């Protein structure tokens, strides 16, 4: 199979590569920009990925800083609280994201969540635009349910690259094979009990029975990310690490 086309910044996508959408709408993902009327150009150097079913295109690029976009699940750390909101950090050295104090399941003005500076929460980005502050929420505002979001107690947070976090969140296909090519967590989960939460902003929260196991899982994730291990390499590394536990 031919390798996907690699585009450099400023290059336009040739029209024969564009998918033919049924409803006439094309969705552009990261790395692409639309100049009306019909030019789509690259803003980074990456390989062009096309999803014909969803009529979407994007450029795959490893590395770089996480840019918040609506609907992403992220792991945020509370920096400080004010009257109505918590100010949280999604990535270092950027402005804080705002988490409303009432944006949790089952709270009211009398029963606010007891979160202090340094606490870690699993949240969803509800607003992200270049003109305003990023806003996050810890519940699904449509249904009012937490759906796994909220405070993450205990455990430890590890940094990975946002592209790797995306691979971790890709899930599995029909045969149970990981779509993102990462099997570390499944392999470890066979032997060790642990809880994990993956944030699209490049953070993974792990909580296991003991500190040793938590740190081991963190090391394996870091290794798979930076070492670029393939599935076989990941299995080998997990086996080796589990022997010591």
């Amino acid at each position, binding site marked *: 199979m031919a390798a996907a086309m690699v585009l450099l*910044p400023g290059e336009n996508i040739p029209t024969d590569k564009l998918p033919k959408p049924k409803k006439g709408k094309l969705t552009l993902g990261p790395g692409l920009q639309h100049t009306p009327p019909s030019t789509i150009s690259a*803003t980074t*150097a990456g390989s062009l990925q096309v999803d014909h079913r969803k009529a979407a295109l994007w450029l*795959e690029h*490893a*590395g770089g800083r996480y840019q918040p976009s609506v609907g992403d699940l992220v792991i945020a750390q509370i920096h400080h609280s004010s009257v109505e909101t918590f100010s949280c950090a999604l990535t270092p050295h*950027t402005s804080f994201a705002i988490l409303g104090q009432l944006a949790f399941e089952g709270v009211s003005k009398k029963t606010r969540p007891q979160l202090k500076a340094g606490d870690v929460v699993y949240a969803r980005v509800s607003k992200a635009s*270049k*003109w305003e502050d990023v806003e996050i929420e810890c519940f699904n505002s449509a249904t009012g349910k937490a759906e796994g979001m909220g405070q993450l107690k205990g455990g430890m947070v590890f940094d990975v690259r946002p592209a790797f976090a995306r691979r971790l969140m890709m899930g599995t296909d029909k045969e149970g094979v990981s779509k993102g*090519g990462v099997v570390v967590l499944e392999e470890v989960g066979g032997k060790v009990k642990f809880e994990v939460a993956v944030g699209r902003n490049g953070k993974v929260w792990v909580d296991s029975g003991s500190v040793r196991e938590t740190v081991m899982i963190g090391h394996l994730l870091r290794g798979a990310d930076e070492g670029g291990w393939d599935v076989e390499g990941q299995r080998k590394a997990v086996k080796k690490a589990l022997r010591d536990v």
Partner: protein
Amino acid sequence: MGPDISHHPLQGADGSVTFSSNLCSILAAANGPVEVQRRDELPEEAAVEVNIRPPSGVSGPRERWLESVVAAVLRSVLHLHMHPRTLVQITLQITKAPSSTLKGAIRDVALLPSLINASFLALLDGGLPLRSTVAAVFLAVVGMGEVREDPSEKELAGCKSVHGLAYNNHGDLLLSESSGSFDLAEWENIADQAEETCRAAMAPLDEDGVVMKGTMSSGPWLRQELTDKAQAAVAWREAT
């Protein structure tokens, strides 16, 4: 082929690269878009800050001038309007400078193309949005009007003039700094040659991978580096 490049040597910066040409080596780090100081904030675009550190000693007016030139070029390359009220910060550490036996002005002009190439690659590594691809080249006119690209120190001895030029993939001239004695006709000839070299650096690869053009240019080094990097990033897709 082409200059010596190593990707992402620094873990702490969003994007980093080391870039070496015949005369100098640069370690570049790019961070952004990050929070900006209130006094530097721009309402509709990102602020660009360039810091250049010499290999030894403290930075002075020479580095300030280099910073202003590099910042001006990067402002035309970055998509500043995508991230208003933020900062794009580039730090350039010169790890090997052109020898001090050369005149100061020649050393400055020699540094600029490497600084620009290194900054561009670092910004790319950091995933910052860019409007175009830039390649810069350093040319010297030696002896009887012969033009040498990326000359070594020996070739530079007794050169008539030196020129640093940068072109983007839309054909725009982004940098033109020169030192020495030359006339307009010579400069136009040099500009044409520089454009050809820069275009060749970004030229599309053919089916087999590498196309070496006939002229003195070092082939599509920029295209090759970035293609290899992009394909390595999606290697996991091919495996599954």
